[in-house]
């Protein structure tokens, strides 16, 4: 079928078309099955039918349709291919197949493999040995000659690499293997990108006795690579390049991903027609930009479309140094205040623990800051100069500010960028003719070049630099009269920067302007974290960094493979090789980004070497062959459905059951919708304790700790019940039924006061329970501990067992200082006026948190003090006094037996509850008479 771009994978099956006439004959005499009906007036019908020639065979068009269906199936089985590839002529007696498997070949690798497979197939037919080499593999790879089967295995085993093709070494190896054999077919399956030494690389191959050359290059070079990703001042800029063949405009999106691969930013990159490079910007907050771990171009599934970012794009550590003591009350005068405020959002601030420079500087250097800011440091102790200078040489950035201390310290070649003149300069003021100076345009050589000069900043005092020839190039900012405001100089890899003003607003209002923030950030941007791996310690040369995260050939970021070797940094430009594929090197703590394309990389198309050997050009893009099997089978299936519908129509189904069929069709369409999972009912988030929690919070309740000792617990319960009744009768508080709590697992937060009878025989609560109690007390709850041993202690000199147990419990708690309730404590007046707090026993003081000393205890009826004591301790056995039985009569006698004591015990309980619930409200209430008097009542 040369007149059609159609070929068949199994042409023998086309003989099946011969069967079509048979099928036609069969179909013609196989009418559709009729509907059978009993019909009594058949004789009448017979008279009608005589005139109507009964069609006992299928209509011709139905037969034709079925024949077409059969023909389609036969054609489909013959595996037709539309637009089949042409065969590539392979001649000679040796096929040297060299494939580029660099990053640029990754997107259409399968097509390249298909092309190579065809070449290998052709070579197999002619029984030619095959040399198979890949340019991105190691130069010492096995290249054959192989048999066709071996070559195929090798071809299938090799994957594209995320590195540029190294043609020179591989070509040389191939040329050596070819040797002087004649009649060699050289197949070069290039990725289309020029490498640096292409001409030199092709030379040894072209010297061989070649029969012909098969030159394959992609039809279009549409790969785009990222060459730069810069974290700018207020935006993140991304630069991409493409091959010059792409003259059309192109719109791409670059995504910024964090370490976990989440997309947190987008940049639109638009190539204008003819442009080979374009850039986009990601305008997101600084904090978000610092999280960028990689930038990837959407739709570019190759390694150059991805760029990993290392610590240079991350937050720096900034050390702050000052000699002035910190004064909380005069923060605005602190030399570091504005610096801290300026840098805190964008950098990690570290400060030494000690204000003494001798200790402070080593402490800072230990943390390997990117920047050290010295606020008002003048003289730097000799012992710390050396490490500081070394740190700076290794890339540290030192920012200094002028101060009176600096003036007295004098010049310092190493730690100041310029030579200073003695004495400061005063601009403006009563004794000066000059006006305060403004800041002019920032010079273009400094990092501030992109910043707009602040209009509202004036400088009234500054220190001056000695005018030297190099002063201008060291100046990053100047005043209107040309005197430098900021100077800087390189010290090894590092920079020393001097602001000729103080960091506080005394000499200039620059520190309180927005420009100050931008300037400091710009300087910090210049710096590099010294804590990054590779420059971990000063003086030690760069170490080898283990591979950490690699960029795969398809642009994915994945763990390192076995081929990646540690990266030797510090030896000039680092090449991307098979041993050092692009990716992040280092460890989790610090990484070094090793990216495929350098900032000046371009994507140039490869040029075909000129040679006298016949060259057969081949294109990967020619793969437009389309397998027709699927469409043909689909067509046959469609015809089958059509045939079924026609048969139904012939059988009269439509007319007879139109409505039912419509309903069935609708049901068939709706069936998937019905089968969709119904959204599950919202989950029941009730917890087992919810009911209890709801009950506990519906009304205020008195709570007591369940000790596990039934007699104590029953007394506690009876006592709480008694107090509850008393409260109901006497006060506005109407507590609910008292509840017992288990400190081990019940939620304590619902109860304002928990009564805890301490018993020596009850096991101490667990550590977890203690922690819960501690938390409860911290969050405002109060526990009333009752040792109930007032007379046990008084009889013996030693402490009672209950007290010991109490000490054990309290030993793990954060117990504030305690005191017996003073006579002017709120507890004594919160409801009743009370002098002491008896329970079943009398005499034990009630211990509460010690309140702050009142400033004038004489006049004040009540102590001041906020908050409620988190703890109360008594030995008077309150619960015993409060305990009542069902009829309301007391359960236990008081000691001594005195009805008034019981009444006072209840009053103590009322006062305690009121104190719990109202806090220090009463301490304010006692002032009401005075206040009223002042108001003129």
């Amino acid at each position, binding site marked *: 079928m040369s007149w059609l771009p159609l070929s068949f994978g199994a042409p023998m099956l086309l003989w099946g078309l011969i069967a079509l006439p048979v099928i036609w004959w069969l179909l013609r005499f196989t009418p559709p099955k009729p509907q059978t009906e009993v019909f*009594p007036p*058949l004789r*009448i*019908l017979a008279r009608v039918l005589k005139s*109507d020639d009964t069609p006992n065979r299928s209509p011709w068009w139905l037969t034709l349709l079925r024949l077409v269906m059969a023909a389609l199936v036969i054609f489909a089985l013959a595996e037709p291919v539309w637009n089949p590839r042409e065969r590539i002529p392979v001649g000679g007696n040796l096929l040297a197949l060299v494939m580029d498997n660099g990053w640029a070949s990754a997107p259409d690798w399968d097509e390249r493999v298909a092309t190579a497979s065809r070449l290998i197939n052709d070579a197999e037919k002619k029984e030619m040995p095959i040399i198979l080499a890949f340019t991105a593999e190691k130069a010492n790879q096995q290249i054959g000659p192989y048999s066709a089967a071996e070559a195929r295995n090798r071809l299938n085993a090799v994957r594209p690499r995320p590195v540029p093709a190294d043609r020179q070494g591989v070509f040389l190896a191939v040329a050596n293997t070819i040797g002087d054999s004649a009649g060699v077919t050289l197949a070069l399956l290039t990725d289309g990108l020029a490498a640096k030494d292409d001409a030199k690389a092709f030379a040894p191959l072209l010297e061989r006795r070649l029969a012909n050359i098969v030159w394959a290059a992609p039809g279009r070079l549409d790969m785009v690579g990222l060459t730069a990703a810069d974290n700018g001042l207020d935006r993140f800029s991304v630069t991409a390049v493409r091959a010059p063949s792409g003259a059309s405009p192109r719109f791409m999106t670059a995504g910024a991903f964090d370490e976990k691969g989440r997309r947190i930013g987008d940049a639109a990159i638009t190539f204008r027609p003819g442009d080979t490079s374009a850039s986009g910007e990601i305008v997101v907050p600084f904090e978000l930009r610092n999280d960028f771990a990689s930038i990837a171009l959407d739709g570019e599934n190759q390694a150059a479309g991805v760029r990993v970012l290392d610590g240079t794009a991350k937050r720096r550590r900034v050390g702050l140094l000052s000699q002035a003591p910190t004064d909380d009350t005069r923060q605005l005068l602190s030399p570091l205040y504005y610096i801290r405020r300026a840098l805190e959002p964008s950098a990690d601030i570290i400060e030494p623990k000690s204000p003494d420079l001798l200790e402070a500087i080593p402490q800072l250097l230990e943390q390997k800051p990117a920047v050290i800011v010295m606020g008002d440091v003048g003289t730097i102790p000799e012992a710390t100069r050396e490490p500081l200078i070394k740190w700076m040489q290794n890339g540290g950035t030192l920012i200094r500010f002028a101060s009176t201390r600096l003036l007295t310290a004098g010049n310092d070649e190493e730690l100041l960028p310029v030579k200073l003149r003695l004495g400061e300069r005063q601009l403006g003021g009563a004794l000066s003719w000059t006006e305060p100076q403004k800041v002019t345009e920032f010079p273009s050589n400094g990092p501030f070049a992109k910043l707009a000069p602040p209009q509202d900043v004036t400088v009234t005092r500054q220190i001056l630099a000695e005018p030297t020839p190099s002063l201008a190039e060291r100046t990053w900012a100047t005043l209107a009269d040309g005197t430098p405001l900021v100077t800087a100089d390189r010290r090894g890899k590092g920079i020393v920067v001097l602001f000729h003003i103080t960091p506080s607003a005394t000499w200039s209002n620059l520190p309180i302007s927005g420009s100050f923030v931008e300037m400091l950030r710009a300087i910090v941007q210049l710096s590099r974290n010294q804590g990054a791996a590779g420059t971990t310690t000063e003086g030690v040369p760069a170490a080898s960094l283990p591979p950490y995260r690699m960029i795969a050939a398809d642009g994915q970021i994945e763990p390192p493979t076995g081929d990646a070797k540690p990266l030797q940094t510090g030896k000039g430009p680092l090449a991307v090789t098979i041993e050092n594929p692009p990716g992040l090197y280092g460890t989790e703590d610090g990484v070094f980004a090793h990216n495929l394309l350098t900032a000046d990389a371009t994507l140039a198309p490869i040029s075909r070497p000129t040679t006298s050997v016949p060259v057969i050009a081949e294109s990967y893009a020619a793969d437009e062959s389309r397998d027709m099997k699927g469409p043909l089978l689909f067509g046959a299936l469609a015809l089958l459905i059509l045939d079924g519908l026609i048969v139904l129509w012939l059988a009269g189904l439509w007319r007879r059951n139109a409505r039912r069929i419509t309903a069935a069709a609708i049901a068939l369409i709706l069936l998937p919708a019905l089968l969709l999972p119904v959204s599950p009912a919202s989950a029941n988030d009730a917890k087992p304790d919810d009911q209890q929690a709801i009950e506990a919070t519906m009304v205020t309740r008195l709570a007591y700790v369940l000790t596990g000792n039934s007699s104590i617990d029953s007394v506690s319960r009876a006592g709480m019940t008694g107090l509850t009744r008393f409260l109901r009768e006497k006060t506005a508080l109407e507590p609910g039924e008292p509840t017992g709590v288990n400190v081990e697992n019940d939620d304590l937060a619902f109860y304002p006061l928990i009564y805890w009878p301490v018993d020596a025989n009850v096991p101490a609560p667990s550590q977890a329970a203690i922690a819960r109690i501690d938390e409860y007390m911290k969050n405002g709850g109060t526990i009333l501990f009752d040792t109930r041993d007032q007379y046990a202690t008084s009889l013996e000199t030693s402490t009672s067992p209950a007290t010991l147990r109490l000490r054990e419990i309290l030993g793990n708690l954060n117990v504030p200082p305690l005191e017996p309730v003073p006579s002017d404590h709120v507890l004594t007046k919160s409801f009743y006026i009370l002098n002491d707090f008896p329970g079943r026993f009398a005499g034990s003081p009630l211990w509460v948190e010690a309140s702050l000393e009142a400033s004038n205890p004489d006049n004040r009826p009540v102590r001041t003090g906020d908050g409620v004591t988190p703890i109360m301790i008594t030995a008077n056995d309150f619960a015993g006094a409060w305990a009542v039985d069902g009829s309301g009569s007391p359960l236990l006698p008081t000691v001594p037996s005195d009805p008034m004591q019981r009444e006072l015990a209840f009053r103590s309980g009322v006062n305690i509850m009121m104190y719990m619930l109202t806090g220090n409200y009463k301490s304010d209430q006692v002032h009401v008479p005075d206040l009223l008097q002042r108001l003129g009542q």
Partner: protein
Amino acid sequence: MARIGEAQAPVAARDALARGRLRASLVPDLLVEARRIVNTVIAGWHGRRKRGIGEDFWQFRPYVEGEAIANIDWRRSARDDHIYVRDREWEAAHTVWLWADPSPSMLYKSAGARVSKQSRALVLTLAMAELLSRSGERIAWPGLVDPFINRNGAERIASHLTQAGTLPAKPDFSGIRRFSDVILVSDFLDPSGETLEWLDGLARRGARAHLVEVADPAEETFPYAGRTEFTDPETGDKLIAGRAEILADEYRNLYIARREAVAAWAKRLGWSYTVNHTDRLASEALVGLHLALSSEDSHLGRVGA
């Protein structure tokens, strides 16, 4: 695909035993049904309105010499100078022959019909039997039951039908004499020529026939479509229509033409022709039949005229 029509009896319906059983099981119900229908008609059933042998008074007329003296009504004659004879209304029983088509084609029932044609035919026949026997007519079934008078004539005919074997497809008219009324319930689906031929034998005997055509709605409207194979329940012949719907119009014309031919022939003879569809009520046909029986020009009327 549901079929439109079906034969109510199984294929072995032509077997005599099966038919007998079927009829036996059908008859008691039909009898009740027939009685129910009769009750709606009985009010409109009148006497002969002719003088004759009977019990009820009809008229006084002057005595004509030669008549039996016993006929003279002396009480009436004593009032004046004339002698009168009391005439009685003619109440002599008349013979009405009933026949329902027993052919297999009558077993047909379509989806739109309530009952099969045979069921409807038996109901109509037995209902007439009930009606006629209540009014004292002699009823008979050609070839099965000779004329008899009994109040429960329908039961007797039903019991005869139950016990009867295979009935001939066409009735035996040999016992029918002049002035008899014959009620023939059938579908009359044979070509009109054949139908008229065997009815002509009846007409020659001087009987007056009332033809009741029981028709299934599907037979008349022909709702078939698509490729359909039609089977004749009597002969088992098959016909395949490629597209049945295109035959409908022509078929309907032929079907109606057949009916009209028979009806016109019947009308010419003074016979009645009633069409009853099985999707309509049986009583409609019964009323029509009753009107035809009691019409002025019926043989019953002519007897005394």
